[in-house]
């Protein structure tokens, strides 16, 4: 039971990270390989503040999210104006730079040895409450002018500009929002595991989140949630083939790309309306 709770808690934290990737990649079509770096920015900021400066936890959370915003601004501002390939290259570089920075400010972060002895302030309930809040907010974002503008510029940037959409601004807002949310997920992580190290937030983590979004269905929030369970659960299921785990995972993704390119859920969203229709159909059938 203990074990399952732990797994579910980690799944919840991953899910918040995936939601960030969903916003940046799924909605807006930008490939950010820096999401995991924002995760570590949040984790380290809060951990150092609480541990070394005795900052109250809620204040540390706010500081961590602000740090994520600042980092997002530094990376995002120069790049959103450019062709979208730049954002994937620059965020990749950002990820590497953050790891180098964490490794080399040993006094503050413990360097490559990691930072241990962080108090355990988060629990299963805190994490899943956060997930619920984040999901609601992201869903609200998707079904607002912001979400529509994101989808529009993902599909055709030039046409979006011609419709009066301030493309750069919408991209930056989305990128920053995701950065702040991912930093928050980082805080949850640090104060759950009580230990963080620079090596665990490489580009592979960001890439995995993007893959999860994609496998779930590039437009579908429901798909992202489902795929998070599936793909964080999958490694557990494949434990018997531990070495080959990632290889199998990759092959599955390749099969999906080639043979079911819309992802599992396509653009489908689970909604109250859909459930009601399903109920009606069921009643008819009966």
């Amino acid at each position, binding site marked *: 039971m203990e074990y399952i709770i732990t797994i579910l808690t980690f799944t919840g934290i991953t899910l918040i990270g995936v939601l960030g990737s969903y916003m940046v*990649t799924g909605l807006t*079509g930008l*490939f950010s390989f820096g999401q995991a770096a924002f995760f570590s920015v949040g984790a380290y900021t809060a951990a150092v503040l609480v541990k070394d400066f005795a900052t109250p936890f809620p204040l540390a959370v706010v500081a961590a999210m602000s740090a994520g915003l600042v980092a997002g601004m*530094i*990376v995002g501002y*120069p*790049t959103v*104006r*450019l*062709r979208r*390939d*730049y954002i*994937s*290259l*620059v965020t*990749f*570089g*950002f990820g*590497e*730079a953050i790891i*180098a*920075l964490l*490794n*080399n400010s040993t006094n503050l972060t413990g360097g490559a040895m990691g930072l241990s002895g962080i108090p355990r302030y988060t629990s299963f309930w805190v994490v899943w409450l956060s997930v619920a809040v984040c999901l609601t907010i992201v869903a609200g974002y998707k079904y607002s002018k912001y979400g529509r503008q994101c989808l529009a510029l993902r599909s055709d*940037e*030039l046409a979006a500009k011609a419709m009066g959409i301030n493309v750069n601004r919408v991209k930056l807002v989305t990128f920053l929002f995701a950065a702040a949310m991912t930093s928050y997920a980082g805080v949850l992580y640090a104060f759950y595991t009580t230990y963080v190290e620079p090596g665990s937030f*490489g*580009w*592979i983590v960001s*890439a995995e989140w*993007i*893959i999860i979004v*994609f496998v779930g269905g*590039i437009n579908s929030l429901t798909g992202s949630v489902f795929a998070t369970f599936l793909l964080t659960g999958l490694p557990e299921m494949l434990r018997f083939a531990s*070495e*080959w785990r*990632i*290889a199998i995972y*990759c*092959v599955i*993704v*390749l099969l999906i*790309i*080639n043979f079911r*390119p819309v992802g599992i859920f396509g653009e489908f969203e689970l909604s109250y309306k859909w459930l009601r229709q399903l109920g009606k159909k069921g009643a008819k059938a009966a």
Partner: protein
Amino acid sequence: MSIQQLLNGVSLGSVYALIAVGFALVFNILKFSNFAHGGVMTLTAYIGLAASLFFSRWLSGLPLFGATLVSAALAGAIVGIVLERMAFRRIRNNNSPVIYYFISSITMGILMENIVTIFASSTFYSYPKFFELSVVELFHVNIALTDLLMLVFSSTALMILLWVLYRTKIGLAIRALSFDVNTANLMGMDSNRVVMATFIAAGILGGVAGVFLGINYTLYPQLGQLIVKGFIASVIGGLGSITGAMIGAVLLGVLEVTLISAVGAGIAPVFVFIIMLTFLLVRPRGIAGVIVQEKA
């Protein structure tokens, strides 16, 4: 800055140029950032190691070094072919959006890295010592032999590539395709063949780069992450320009050597990143100054 440092920087830059150009070739044709290129470098670097151990029974010195490079380059070409067939051919024929190329390339990158981890485990390997001599004196400047070889072989590889691109029929086809895929197809060009040729060329460059990286940094499964050097060089040079990528790479090499001696190797990537961002703010089109714009 001493001439010594400058030489070091230029030779490091020449290896970065191999990475950046391998990346830029594919970018030019398919218009997406090929993250699998890092995996290609890792895989070929290990294959090169295996080859060097195999050939060391009969060869030594320069011939051994040459045999290693050629095997890695050949392996790179084969990996390029497999990559194109497995990850991109179907997507391309489906006319899928760029997003799919991205996903496919990251997945292939992770897959190749993982295959290396499975077969070679996470231990560090290093190439055998190819030469007795480690330092040569050139115009009263001491230069490490490996640096000199890197410079010579990388520039040769790049020269050959430029010759192929600008003096041969297939090179012309590659340039035409990078300009406009649809028109090239309408002109009766077999785009599958040209794309394949591009992946082969990129693979060969990846193979040579892989060996040099292996010699420089020892071998480990995450070696491919050094592709970030290629990215930074491309961004500085101007995305989509091959000559820009070369110039950007040499600049990056010199910059890095200078920074390492000034602030230390660990923190240097942070400064490089900041410089790149500043560059993007001031001159977003890069040195080459081409801007790839969507057509209205």
